[in-house]
């Protein structure tokens, strides 16, 4: 009897040893959630393209393991995003959930993913809640905290001595963060602060109010299709020459093809630009153009590419042992991978400490080509977000 037990135990031990090398055949499962339908679909497509390019660059493996990537469409709705992420965590049992464009979707998704003990790697939305009290060791982002980019623009406009600025954003989590951030560094007079309905197609009424206030300059945040509508109508209303327009996340590689000259001269702040000359970025932008018919990637794509690279570094750091979550957290905190923005580090709330640049839409290389975004100068070097002090996490 005892002998039998011993045999059984030996067998069990042997079996355990046999399964150990099987870590090598284990799969990394990544659930990538973005908006693939509706007006936001263009952003999701750019993200997916960049994820696929990252996998190409990694030889279709992540951290040396076979990778399976499952895409999910949140339709730009928090409830749908939550549903999709629940399915990924419970049914597909993914190791990482990544992606998410919209802050309101992120606020619905991130807590439930991290509570389930699954990593959440944000590749765009950076709502302040997740940088402050709601920070979590299972949450990392390869993007930024919402307030940072407008803080950079506020700083630039403040330094340029611009006063009397009229500010506008859509009425949702990120819109509020953006204007809050702007007001944190811009100390001049705010001529008006306007929140519009999300995905509202027509801004004519708001533009008439704006003109009546006669500000010195205008600052807006209108991502994706909203930006296209806004820029077209701003130009059509003849405001372009009247009130200089400054923006964040409004003019980018995805909206420029739809507005062309209406974007020329536009100033934006951003942590990344297609013309940053580090090795990873040159490879990313060049190969993206090759793979996707000459299209230029956007920062949405760069962050998503980085997201996969960060996951790759995490899995590599624990030698493929996906059960070692502590080890992966420790690795990711080093941000030890070749990022498209160049070297950066993580704050204790898992948000990047990184540079922010002033970008300008300038005429493209050929006469017929679209305007391109180029770095003008560095506004903030190694810049930290303003909410880390509320984050209790220590390491």
């Amino acid at each position, binding site marked *: 009897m005892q002998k039998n037990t011993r045999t059984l135990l030996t067998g069990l031990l042997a079996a355990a040893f046999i399964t150990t090398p099987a870590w090598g055949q284990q799969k990394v499962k990544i659930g990538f959630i973005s908006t693939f*339908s*509706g*007006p936001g*679909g*263009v952003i999701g*497509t750019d993200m997916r393209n960049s994820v696929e390019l990252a996998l190409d660059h990694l030889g279709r493996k992540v951290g040396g393991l076979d990778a399976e990537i499952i895409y999910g469409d949140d339709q730009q709705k928090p409830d749908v995003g939550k549903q999709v992420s629940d399915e990924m965590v419970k049914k597909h049992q993914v190791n990482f959930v990544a992606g998410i464009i919209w802050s309101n979707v992120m606020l619905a998704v991130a807590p439930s993913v991290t509570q389930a003990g699954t990593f959440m790697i944000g590749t765009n939305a950076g709502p302040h809640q997740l940088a402050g009290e709601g920070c979590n060791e299972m949450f990392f982002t390869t993007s930024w905290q919402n307030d940072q980019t407008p803080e950079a623009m506020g700083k630039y406009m403040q330094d340029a001595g611009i006063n009397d600025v009229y500010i506008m954003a859509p*009425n949702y989590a990120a819109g509020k963060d953006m204007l809050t951030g702007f007001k944190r560094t811009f100390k001049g007079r705010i001529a008006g*602060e*306007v*929140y*519009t*309905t999300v*995905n*509202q*197609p*027509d801004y*004519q*009424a*708001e533009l*008439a*109010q704006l003109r*009546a206030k006669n500000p010195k300059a205008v600052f807006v945040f209108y991502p994706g*299709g909203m930006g*296209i*509508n806004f820029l*077209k*109508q701003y130009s*059509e*209303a*003849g405001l372009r020459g009247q009130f200089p327009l400054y923006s964040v996340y409004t003019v980018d590689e*995805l*909206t420029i*093809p*739809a*507005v*062309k000259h209406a974007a020329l001269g536009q100033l934006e702040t951003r942590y990344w630009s297609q013309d940053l000359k580090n090795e990873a970025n040159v490879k990313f932008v060049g190969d993206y153009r090759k793979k996707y018919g000459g299209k230029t990637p956007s920062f949405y794509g760069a962050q998503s590419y980085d997201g996969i690279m960060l996951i790759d570094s995490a899995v590599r750091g624990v030698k493929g042992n996906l059960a070692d979550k502590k080890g992966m957290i420790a690795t990711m905190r080093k941000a030890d991978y070749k990022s498209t923005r160049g070297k950066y580090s993580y704050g204790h709330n898992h948000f990047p400490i990184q540079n922010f640049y002033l970008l300008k839409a300038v005429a493209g290389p050929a006469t017929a080509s679209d305007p391109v975004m180029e770095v003008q100068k560095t506004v903030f070097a190694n810049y930290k977000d303003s909410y880390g002090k509320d984050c209790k996490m220590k390491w």
Partner: protein
Amino acid sequence: MNLVLVAEQTLNGLQLGVMLFLLAAGLTLVFGIMNLVNLAHGALYMVGAYLTTWFYQNTGSFALAVALGLAGTLVVGIVVELVALRTLYERDHLDQVLATFGLILFFNELVAILWGRSAIYSTLPPYLSGHVELFGTMRYPLYRLVIIGIGMAVAVLLWFVVSRTRLGMLIRAGASNRAMVAALGVDIRLLYTIVFGFGAALAGLAGLLAGPIFAVQPGMGELILIQVFVVIVIGGIGSIRGAFAGALIVGMVDTMGRAFLKPVLSALISPAAGDAAGPALASMLIYLLMAAVLAFRPEGLFPSRGS
């Protein structure tokens, strides 16, 4: 100064109103006469915008592109009616909603395949992109005035067709009592195809007018369709008059709410209240109006007679 602003916002409200009217006219006729809930109406608006933008890029003539875009949307509308919607008239509304929702997905994917997911470049011809001086100090975009003019002209034309021609008589009769019209020997199927085709062309017209100033992208129709349904509920289903009144009311209320609700609330209650409640309330205003209409006049402000 303030009066000029009010005048300008009135024009803006009017412009949004006629845009909604172009969409609502087709939708309300299709619902009133054919008893068909057509969620895909916004898809036809998108088709109009895409076709016209594409023709404009390839022909270089905006006028020609408008003509081709209109004709194209008319053809697409007729084909959709013949192929898909014909089989749905006798089914209940839930089936129609499902089927026309399917059409939305179909058309959104189709334009994404043909033109890509990104918004395509569209612009105004130079002769329409200037400004007009009004009331001395106000500069109003010429193109917005053109939209108002076209919308008004279409409204007059529709009124004439519906109330003064034989076709209009049949349309009104169809809205009141379909069975009787069929019993009197009118080819109701042909009438349906014509009505749907023209409804589609009107949606296409709204779309092609929107093209140069809005983002031309997959799903653009759904953003405006909800407001159009509000218009129809307020105006009364199946009634062109109702659609016109409803569209102008919704256009005005929405524009005025967005422009003046926040300053008015700030002045009346407190700036904090204006900041907090203004934007939220402004975006709810037309739905509150709809709820009020449904509560006090469920058949709408101008219901079609006899239905």
